[in-house]
């Protein structure tokens, strides 16, 4: 059971990093990114290709993932940052689909639908199963901490105030002489790089990736984390991602006690239950479990 909890915490860690990235892009800046799974996939594949095809160590794969993620983030944001709200959402959704189609169709690079086995591991060989699981949890925790510190630092820095101003009304910071476009670009690219970094570590954790790993279902889980936890609030994101993982995984045990149903009905019941739990959570906490501190500037003691 411990090993299972460790694995689930590790999974939750990836959701946390992705949700933090999304919090930077949407929670703080108001840019709807539905293409998160695309950046995650890009990081995973960039890392896999670097370590397996080119034979370089994990560190190189990780660095490559971050770089590719940032560049792709810049490109997507540069092309579409002028789009507002839902239009940006569809553009980014399109980006994620294009990444998935590339991974599916460009066999020579990504090994296509057959899947990409990954032998390179960021931890020493020869550890016991238990120790390996803990080592990965340690690595993911480190990534979570770094991501949290980065996003939290931005949130409390002057840049965070500009980003929030952009979120509320772009015209205001623009009128104050801020280069809105550049701020949006930075926030989006940084978020994309974080997502790609998570993708890299994820790829070397699961040791086998395929286009099916990076579907909209994943993005939905991350969005749930952010909204359930409280958009704009990084601690809320931690709580939200953990809670979402508890809902996703805990429901396995919950449906286990419903007897007399076949496996198909149980599966359907479980997913319907996940839907109901989300509706109920949001219904009673529409701002999230830990809402964004509202008037931080006047009462700095309440925030942070």
């Amino acid at each position: 059971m411990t090993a299972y909890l460790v694995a689930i915490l590790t999974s939750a860690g990836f959701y946390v990093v992705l949700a933090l990235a999304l919090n930077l892009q949407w929670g703080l800046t108001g840019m709807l990114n539905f293409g998160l799974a695309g950046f995650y996939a890009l990081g995973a594949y960039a890392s896999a290709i670097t370590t397996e095809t080119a034979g370089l160590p994990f560190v190189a794969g990780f660095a490559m993932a971050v770089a590719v993620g940032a560049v792709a983030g810049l490109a997507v944001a540069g092309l579409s940052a002028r789009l507002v709200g839902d239009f940006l959402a569809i553009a980014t959704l399109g980006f994620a689909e294009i990444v998935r189609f590339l991974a599916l169709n460009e066999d020579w690079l990504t090994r296509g639908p057959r899947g990409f086995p990954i032998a390179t591991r960021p931890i020493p060989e020869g550890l016991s199963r238990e120790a390996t699981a803990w080592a990965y949890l340690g690595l993911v925790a480190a990534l979570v901490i770094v991501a949290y510190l980065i996003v939290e630092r931005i949130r409390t820095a002057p840049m965070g105030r500009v980003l929030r101003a952009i979120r509320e009304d772009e015209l205001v910071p623009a009128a104050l002489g801020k280069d809105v476009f550049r701020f949006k670009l930075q926030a989006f690219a940084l978020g994309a790089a974080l997502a790609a970094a998570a993708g890299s570590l994820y790829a070397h954790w699961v040791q086998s990736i395929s286009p099916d790993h990076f579907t909209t279902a994943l993005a939905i889980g991350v969005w749930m984390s952010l909204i359930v936890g409280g958009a704009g609030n990084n601690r809320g994101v931690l709580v939200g991602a953990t809670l979402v993982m508890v809902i996703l995984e805990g429901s396995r045990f919950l449906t286990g006690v419903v007897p007399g149903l076949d496996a198909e009905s149980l599966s359907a019941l479980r997913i319907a239950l996940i839907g109901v739990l989300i509706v109920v959570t949001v219904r009673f906490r529409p701002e999230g479990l830990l809402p964004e501190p509202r008037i931080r500037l006047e009462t700095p003691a309440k925030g942070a």
Partner: protein
Amino acid sequence: MPSLKTPRLTRRHALVLGAGALASPWVARPGFAQTDAIRIGSLTPNTGGGSPFGPEIAEAHRLVVDLVNSQGGVNGREIILSQENSETNPEVAVRAARKLIDADRVMAILGTWSSSVTLGVMPLCQEANVIQMCTSSSESIPAGDKKGLLFDFQALNPAWGKAIARLALARGFDQIAVMGINNDFTTSMIGTFQQSLEAGGGKVVNEPFLYNPNQPSYRAEVERLIAGNPPAVFIPSYVTDFTAVYREIYRSGYAGQVITISLSTGPKFKEAVGDAANGILHGFPVPPVGKDAFDAYLRFVGLEPSGQVQRPFGSAGYDQINTLLLGIAKAGSLDPFEVVKGVFAIANDPGERVTTYAEGVAKLAAGAEINYDGASSSVEFLPNGMLASRDFELYEIRDGKDVSLERITSES
């Protein structure tokens, strides 16, 4: 426990009977000691792309386990079956497999269907010495199984391509246009189909191409496929997309021969398109219609053998759980590597033919060697855990029924 005898009604009945069903699992459980239970995991695509097939695999696992438990278990040990839904999604399946391995402590995971899921959970199974039994046909599956823990109950896809090309040529079709659903299952099938067709003097006309599932329309793909009016088209696919594709082909007025795989032409397809299904040629390695073991399986899950290809994966799920349990009985231990040896021993020649667990275990107890002959195939494994050979049958749909045309044995 009516839900076991009439599995097709379970869903609705269970909802209605809710309260009555609530108590039954505990009533039905014989007095096994919990400590020495055999823990087995079943991970099937109950939702998502595999949902037309996953439930029948899950059901076969469940019914066999309940039956064997009611007869006293394996070597006196109770079997505890934990069932999870892979959602046909490897990201989810990895977490479900973690639960099966680390929380339920299973010794084997049965029933993975799409190759991306089978390959996705493979590193976990290898690391934890968990046996895998799947129905996936990607060519990269044997390579990932470094420890020799995997049994595949599906022929690898090159075998399919060869067999169907031979059958098409035998029917006089040598100009064939090809499109397939975009997944690992079809990509190499199309390659070997093309090679075999060309080796036999035929030719693939137009450029073969892949389409993505879950599309709102397949019109453009069909236009491209039938461009130039080829005499025959071959469409490796699954039932959900093929139903839409075939409607489009029919409505486009294409009058040539449509060839596909039997996965796409089950009873539900025939219901959905009606008489228009007549004339389709389809080939498939499982299940051998009319074989006694297959008919016994159908009756076991509450269906009547109808002379049609049905439950293509449920029959494989039935063979998975039977061979695993017989393998455990043979090994007399739960050590995964011993069980693997046991599975090879009971599945492959030599031995007396058996088709059910009860039959097999009785002969084992009498000291005989056995050879399990399954509902989906003869279940003979190569040393790498792949099926050694497969009977491959070509059918034509006539009057809404599958009529067998020819049977060949294709080597993997």
